[in-house]
């Protein structure tokens, strides 16, 4: 296209504010954090050196490795539950075909509310002494649980709350995938008289894989950075059992103001997220049809 100089200038003027903002508020801060992660601070916050101190401290820090473990445990548990339940829910919605608007709003409601609100409401429901959850358990003759206050099950409980919130989101993504599958493949299977479960495992699921991987990417990015819900409910406790890398880095940074060490932790977490996104994108390319 033949764009003259004035046109080109106007195009630049239109994209420049967003570009300047992106550089100033997103790109530059990332570089600044990388730089801070290589700075050594004194106990009073003065820069006293430059090098890999923060990273060598990290590798020797038990709470860092605990953070890695909690992050991965919470990530894998939540992702598996949300994919399995989300696919199931999508199949139910797909079979029902017509979905009343009110039903759609209902399924949207958990993931549109702030995670902070979800945390407030589950805190009350799961209260160990007066919560409704333990009342249901004891009415059924089961022993009460201390839920978020229990070191042993705090991660599964957090995964459960996140699964309550995000399963409908995964379901709506998978439903979009189901609706875009060509009907001809089902018709062919029907003519062949293939049994229902075989149609699912041999036809529907393989065709759905790219959609499922997309859902995995979107959830992975959020789950590896799991923050709001934990900060509102447990703040990493009891005894560090829900201290994800993100929560740990935040507390190091803004409760102890060790900016250099917090930067190193956040750079490490970002590399984990980036690694997961790259790996899943490779996977998506492999299952694309």
């Amino acid at each position, binding site marked *: *296209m033949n764009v003259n100089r*004035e*046109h080109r200038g*106007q*195009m630049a003027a*239109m*994209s420049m*504010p*967003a570009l300047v*903002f992106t550089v100033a*508020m997103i790109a530059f*801060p*990332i570089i*600044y954090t990388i730089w801070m992660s290589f700075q050594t601070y004194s106990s009073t916050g003065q820069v006293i050196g430059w090098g890999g101190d923060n990273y060598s401290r990290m590798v020797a820090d038990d709470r860092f490795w605990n953070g890695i473990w909690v992050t991965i445990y919470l990530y894998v548990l939540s992702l598996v539950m949300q994919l399995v339940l989300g696919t199931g829910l999508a199949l*139910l*919605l797909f*079979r*029902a075909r017509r979905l009343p*608007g009110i039903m759609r709003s209902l*399924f*949207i*409601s*958990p993931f*549109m*509310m*702030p*995670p*902070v*609100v979800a945390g*407030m*409401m*589950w*805190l*009350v429901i799961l209260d160990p002494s*007066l919560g*409704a959850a333990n*009342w249901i358990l004891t*009415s059924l003759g089961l022993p009460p649980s201390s839920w978020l206050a229990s070191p042993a099950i705090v991660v599964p409980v957090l995964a459960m709350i996140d699964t*309550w919130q995000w399963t*409908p*989101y995964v379901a*709506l993504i998978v439903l*979009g995938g189901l609706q875009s599958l060509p009907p001809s493949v089902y018709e062919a*299977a029907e003519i062949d*008289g293939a049994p*229902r479960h075989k149609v699912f495992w041999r036809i529907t699921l393989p065709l759905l894989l790219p*959609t499922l991987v*997309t859902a995995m990417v*979107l959830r992975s990015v959020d789950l590896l*950075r799991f*923050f709001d819900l934990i900060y*509102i409910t447990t703040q990493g406790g009891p005894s560090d059992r829900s201290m994800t890398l*993100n929560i740990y880095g935040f507390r190091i*940074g*803004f409760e102890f103001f060790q*900016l250099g060490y*917090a*930067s190193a932790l*956040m750079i490490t977490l970002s590399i984990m*997220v980036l690694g997961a996104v790259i790996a899943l994108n490779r996977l998506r390319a492999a299952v694309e049809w």
Partner: protein
Amino acid sequence: MTTRPSDSRWLDGLNLVLLVLAGVIVMTPTAWMVLSSFKPSYEVTAYPPTLVFQPTLENYATLNSQTPFLRYTMNSLIVTVGSTLFGLLLGAPAAFVASWTRITWPAVVTLMARMAPGTLFLLPWYVMFRQVDMIGSYTALILTHAVITLPVVIWVLLPYFDNIPRSIYEAAQVDGCSPFRIFRRIALPLVSSGLAVSAILAFVFSWNFFLFALVLSNSQTKTLIAASFNFIGEGSTNWGGLMAAATIIALPPLILAAVVQRWLISGLTLGAVKG
């Protein structure tokens, strides 16, 4: 399939039952929150919990009298509306140019904000804003929340701009229309529904965002969501107030989500999934 019609009807029934069950699981916790917010204070913590009670607005009144709730709400509105407008102002022309020139790498850079943990940005921002003495200011809150809204605006609008036939631009250019005029007079009116969707999603994302205001606001500029902590502190004695606060915070996103539900999934996945 190999199933007989009666068999299929039985399965349809089972399908419906499971779907209703899923609906109940999804709805119950939220319903419990709303119900609790209308319970008289002595009944919120009753054990076993009560289901039948005399509804009252007492918790909402207490919330208003014991916390600067209106002030928090105003702060939330200032930051959310400000960052949404800022995101639209910068994002709409940028998305137009990205769509026209097919240069999308700057848009990809904004996605870094969706991938890196918020704390990674907070650390340098904290240093930067402290340097210019802007911690606790509305400006700092609006600018940082615009980091949330800008990618939403750009990525929601991109496919809308892509859908405009290029022949329209070319014809306008032949007629001597400048790019700026094409954007304002031709492209923008054609993507008005996209603008509405992106504005609503940006509003919801900004409203729901917790981390930045947690560190960058002060007692004067604290947003509703950053104040949640105060409510939880009070909540150990006052569950009714806590649930009333949670209900009010959840209300704007839930109402707006119901409005845009048809476009929600493609918007939430930033174009990765067509809804």
